[in-house]
């Protein structure tokens, strides 16, 4: 029974997606019905994940599946964040499609499949399973980004993402081959044992393999020097998909990165110096790009790069012996809440065909729609890391863990980058509150998305009280 419990979230998302496809065949289930069903299925999967949260750390069906999946508290919390991201992105999508054309019935189905792939990614304990999970996630996301073939911007975004994603996938496969040559197995458990006996640096194929695999994941995580694709792809994707990519994909990828580095403390130790520089360059490159943007979506994409930098600090600071992933998961949750909140608000404020997307379009929003402006300000302040929001606590935990691991300079650079990022977050708040409105901000009548925005805004404060043991 315990085995079934552990994979139940996978079944809920995968079977949910198939159910949604079948339901779309009925005439009575049209746009509204499918949207509500998609949101409901994400909520259901979330509660399933919550219900199995205390089922312990083990490898489900170790006899049949040969230990290819493994669950732990870390993977389960990551799964919770992913499914919550899916839920709020689905709400944003519902609002988005009441104002925009181009709805396809397969939209929520692809989102559920992507979530299923992400859950598999966090649980995978073997390199080939991991690759298949990566492909399940990526294929679904490619289709979500580029489903509207008539739009040139979508096509450009999906082409860039697909090409570079395929490139990263090739790097990953090459790395798997090298690791197999070095360890004669693709299972994490065996690789751990091999590194324990032969050592990591004295086994060249393992070093080369880990190098290529980490490159592939750093690409997916939008870390320097693989960050250039992010801005165009996030800008070209539909708003709710951008929100989903920025939060859920990032959670899954960082969970995998942590799982992979945790294979052996030797492996992590060999990478700490490089990750240090990658973290610093990612933060500052992201900040430079974000400061130059005039489009809100592009700014959020660039700020996503900066947040990847903070998460890499958390990777540098983790210690294999006492790894809980607490700081990282808290940061991911805090970042996801704020980002999803902004995208949920934008999905109804942007209006028909994503009309309002630049900073200037939101001038004087506070006069016309005070609640929306207040919520957006809360999310921006949380991203900037102002107390008492969740973003502040997230940054606090990460920087404290960097201090604890002895990386004082990294912690200080993190604080500097955080101060730099105030520039573009506060700019929007100033525009919303201290300028006269030029627009009446008329949007279609809807209830779910504004409600979701308010719930997220409350959560930004609520989760900051949740204590994390470093």
């Amino acid at each position, binding site marked *: 029974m315990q085995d079934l419990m552990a994979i139940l979230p996978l079944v809920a998302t*995968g079977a949910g997606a198939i159910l949604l*496809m079948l339901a*779309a065949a009925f005439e009575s289930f*049209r*746009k*509204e019905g*499918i949207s509500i069903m998609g949101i409901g299925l994400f909520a259901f999967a979330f509660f399933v994940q919550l219900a199995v949260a205390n089922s312990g750390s083990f490898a489900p069906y170790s006899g*049949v*599946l*040969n230990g*290819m*999946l493994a669950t732990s508290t870390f993977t389960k919390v990551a799964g919770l964040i992913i499914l919550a991201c899916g839920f709020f992105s689905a709400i944003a999508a519902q609002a988005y499609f009441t104002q925009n054309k181009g*709805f*396809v*019935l*397969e*939209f929520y*189905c*692809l989102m559920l*499949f992507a979530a*299923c792939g992400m859950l*598999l990614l966090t649980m995978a304990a*073997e390199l*080939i*399973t991991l690759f*298949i*999970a990566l*492909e*399940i996630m990526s*294929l*679904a996301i*490619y*289709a979500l980004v*580029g*489903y509207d*073939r008539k739009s040139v911007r979508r096509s450009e975004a*999906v082409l860039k993402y697909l090409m570079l994603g395929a490139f990263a996938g090739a790097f990953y496969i090459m790395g798997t081959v*090298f690791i197999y*040559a*070095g360890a*004669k197995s693709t299972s994490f458990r065996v690789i751990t044992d091999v590194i324990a006996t032969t050592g990591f640096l004295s086994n*060249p*194929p393992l*070093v*080369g393999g880990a190098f290529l695999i980490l490159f592939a994941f750093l690409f997916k995580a939008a870390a320097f020097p693989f960050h250039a694709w992010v801005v165009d792809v996030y800008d070209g994707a539909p708003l709710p998909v951008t929100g989903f990519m920025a939060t859920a994909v990032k959670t899954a990828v960082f969970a995998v990165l942590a799982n992979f580095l945790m294979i052996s403390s030797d492996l992590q130790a060999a990478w700490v110096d490089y990750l240090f520089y990658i973290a610093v360059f990612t933060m500052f490159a992201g900040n430079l790009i974000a400061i130059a943007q005039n489009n809100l979506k592009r700014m959020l994409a660039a700020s996503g790069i900066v947040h990847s930098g903070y998460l890499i600090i958390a990777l540098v600071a983790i210690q294999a012996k006492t790894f809980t992933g607490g700081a990282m998961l808290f940061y991911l949750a805090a970042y996801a809440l704020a980002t999803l909140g902004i995208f949920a608000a934008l999905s109804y404020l942007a209006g028909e065909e994503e009309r309002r997307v630049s900073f200037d379009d939101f001038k004087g929003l506070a006069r016309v729609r005070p609640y929306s402006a207040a919520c957006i300000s809360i999310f921006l302040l949380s991203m900037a890391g102002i107390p008492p929001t969740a973003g502040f606590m997230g940054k606090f935990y990460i920087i404290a863990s960097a201090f604890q691991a002895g990386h004082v300079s990294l912690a200080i650079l993190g604080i500097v980058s955080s101060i730099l990022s105030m520039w573009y977050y506060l700019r929007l708040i100033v525009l919303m509150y201290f300028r006269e409105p030029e627009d009446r901000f008329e949007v279609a009548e809807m209830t779910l998305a504004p409600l979701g925005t308010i719930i997220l805004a409350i959560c930004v404060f609520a989760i900051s009280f949740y204590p994390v043991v470093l």
Partner: protein
Amino acid sequence: MNSPASFMDAPALFSADGLLGIIFLIMIAVTLTGGFIAATAERLVRALAGIVICFTGVAGFYYFLNSPFMAMMQILIYVGAICITISFAIMLAAPERTRKTGPANLLSGPLGFIIAALVFGGMCALALRTQWEPFAKSATGTVREIGIELLTNHSMVFELISLVLLIAIIGAIVIARGGRTG
């Protein structure tokens, strides 16, 4: 560190091993030639022909790696199915003859060359520094062996492949046909 085998250790040319070695060298030449044509061809159809040659050479590698089934599948799937599909796509899309390139960045050429050289150097260093040992139990690469492996040790992967194919089909329908609108 391994010392590279000296030229005198090589098998005689007119022995079984020597002939196999020559075939192996031919496969390398075929793969590299194909890859070179694919990368430098001006026209898309010629690049595709280069890929076909390259894939055929790779099939030869699989044969030498003791996996005749993989070699067969490489020819059947990559040379047969995938390249034919690409040629259909080229015919249906009717790309323009002349190659259009954006304004060339002065840095991109040298930078690309440096990165390629670094990757090549890294791979060479890796190959030379490793003590390559044969696996204790060498697989014979039969269909039976692959089937047993897929349904026992890698059953999870086998199951998940079906999900990948399903998503690929849905994605293709959504992008190509615009999906079912509500």
